[in-house]
């Protein structure tokens, strides 16, 4: 058969300007990150020490887990606002299991994860089955989960040997060391949550890019209708995504509980915004233009580094917000400006 080229490949050599623009689109975010690191390490000699770097990584481990969940929901074209409350619930649940019911490690890990999966199913039911738009459906679930976990603890945080809220004396259990290890321990002098995070990021990256299921997630989000017509069970994959989102949020909650040694009510609330921000910054990394886990990880690193470095530079926390916002805009401007003329 004669080959006839209708695609007319564009001239491979774009002109210089084009290439610069392309370069910034791909590497703008990373460049911004490099610049931030440079500035901080110049202004503060403590910044690039091993201790501080592992601290930064440890500090972002929880947000990264949340953000990975958010990334999944975004990949299938959805959005999960309930992750923050799921973190809170998981934190409180593991606290309660340890302190109120003196349960074993396995139970303390499993129950919150199952709860996270359940919340994911509820979200999926509401968004996929009842077809309530994702933003509002998961917002409603957020309210509900927040209410449930506060009602369960009557608004108290849960800590070792606390007086029981119903006045029946002191709680029998404590935060056992094996559990605290998850948040505070070290392996080979690396904080355990950092190891956990890196392993999970790597696995999720492999999963999303090199497995069939991973690609189906992307297909579902890219064009639900086309994916459906190609035989992808899109609703099933959307359901999976919400369940995965819930499970990651629960995992984040467990790490959080282990890190602070408390079943702190409402502890997950602040994680929502940062998780979403990390996932969104991730869009721009390597010019991906779509949610991706490596990008999300880098997004979390940017947020973490900013917080750490600016605190070290003694910038008041509210002024930090200005810089955080400014850098967000700056990094993204590099990426998005001139994207489509």
């Amino acid at each position: 058969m004669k080959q006839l080229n209708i695609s007319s490949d564009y001239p491979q050599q774009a002109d210089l300007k084009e290439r610069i623009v392309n370069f910034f689109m791909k590497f703008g975010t990373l460049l911004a990150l490099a610049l931030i690191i440079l500035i901080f390490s110049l202004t503060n000699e403590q910044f690039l020490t091993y201790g501080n770097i592992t601290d930064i990584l440890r500090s972002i481990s929880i947000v990264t887990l949340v953000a990975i969940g958010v990334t999944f929901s975004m990949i299938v074209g959805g959005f999960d606002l309930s992750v923050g409350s799921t973190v809170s619930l998981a934190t409180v649940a593991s606290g309660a299991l340890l302190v109120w019911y003196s349960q074993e490690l396995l139970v303390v890990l499993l129950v919150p994860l199952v709860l996270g999966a359940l919340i994911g199913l509820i979200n999926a039911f509401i968004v996929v089955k009842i077809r309530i738009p994702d933003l509002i459906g998961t917002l409603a679930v957020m309210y509900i989960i927040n209410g449930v976990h506060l009602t369960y603890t009557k608004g108290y945080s849960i800590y070792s040997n606390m007086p029981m809220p119903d006045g029946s004396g002191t709680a029998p259990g404590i935060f056992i060391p094996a559990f605290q290890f998850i948040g505070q321990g070290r392996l080979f002098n690396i904080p355990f949550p950092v190891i956990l995070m890196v392993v999970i990021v790597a696995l999720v990256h492999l999963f999303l890019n090199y497995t069939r299921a991973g690609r189906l997630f992307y297909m579902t989000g890219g064009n639900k209708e086309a994916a459906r017509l190609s035989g992808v069970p899109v609703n099933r994959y959307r359901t999976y995504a919400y369940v995965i989102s819930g499970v990651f949020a629960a995992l984040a909650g467990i790490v959080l509980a282990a890190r602070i040694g408390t079943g702190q009510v409402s502890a997950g609330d602040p994680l929502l915004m940062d998780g979403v921000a990390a996932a969104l910054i991730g869009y721009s990394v390597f010019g991906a233009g779509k949610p991706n886990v490596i990008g999300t990880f880098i997004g979390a690193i940017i947020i973490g580094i900013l917080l750490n470095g600016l605190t070290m530079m003694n910038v008041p926390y509210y002024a930090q917000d200005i810089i955080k916002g400014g850098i967000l805009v700056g990094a993204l401007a590099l990426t998005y400006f001139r994207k489509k003329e």
Partner: protein
Amino acid sequence: ACTDQQPASQEEAPEEAVAEESTEAAEETEEASTEQTSQAGDAEIPAAVDKPLKIAAIMEFSTGTFASQYVSGLEAQVEKFGGEVQIYNANNDLSQMANHLQTAINQGVDGILIDHGRAEALNQGVEEALEKGIPVVTFDNDITVDGVTAISQDDYSLAWGTLKQMAQDIDGEGNIVYVWAGGFTPLERRNVIYEAFLEHYPNVSEVARFGSVSNNTALDSQNQMEAVLKKYPEEGSIDAVFAPYDEFAKGVTRAIQQAGRDEIKVYGIDLSDEDLQIMQEENSPWVTTAATDPAEVAGVQVRFLYQKIAGEETPSIYALDPSVVNVSDLPDEPVTMADVGQHIEGWGSPNAARSPWMDALEAKNGQ
């Protein structure tokens, strides 16, 4: 002054309600303050503090008037000593607080102040700090690591002080409204006393309870109090409101004022310049509050830290005495935090934890 009042309030508090640590605290306080409140003199300035020190203050949150005044208290005292204080605000995020503590240690600061937070989250960091020779003084949390001085404003006494006044005013019986939200150590502690109070006064009954803490706590409380007032429209159906956090008290007070239900009295906890103004308004329903001076708390905390750096002995526990401020004790003209002490006996303890060399140090840096 503080040594007189503290045991008094302890005695009256129902036994089962007062956690043991509080009693212990009171006892140690007695020793500590007598020991530390020595006379000012031109003692020699220890070399360890005779240079600009870098102090880190790790705070769980820094919004609200209490926190703001606490921060300015910290800054004022450290500045007087010629040091520099860096505020690490965790914005109500405990894991962030732990991170901040770590960052401060990495920074190699000379001393660390911790405000609120929880032991489980911070113990690890505190221990690491001590290992590295960085002294730590905490305020209002449950950290009990050896070598740390823990000061507190004694939430149990605060709650009991204002509740006792309420009990007297309503004569031990009546309908009250309770504003409360969990999740915050101080509020949880105050609640312990409140539960005990209800048991102690069986004729006092709680008819409504609401409350939530957000960045807009006062307005939320105001809206919710309005709903409660609508539910109990008859005069006399509510006798008092217990609002153990000044943001609650502010909202409730405004709701009552705007509804013209001045017969309902508000009993609060905490005090700020703004609170003082509201309390001093004519016919303000907010009649009583129990509080310590946040700036004063900060001052004591900083001075303990400097003592530690100077190598002096400091107690492991020190509780500041709260005072009960009744509007009736205040004069008619507006009063500010700075001069509450002139009208309320026992307000503030400017000489707590003061070493002889501190005046010299302050004088030197004040030029």
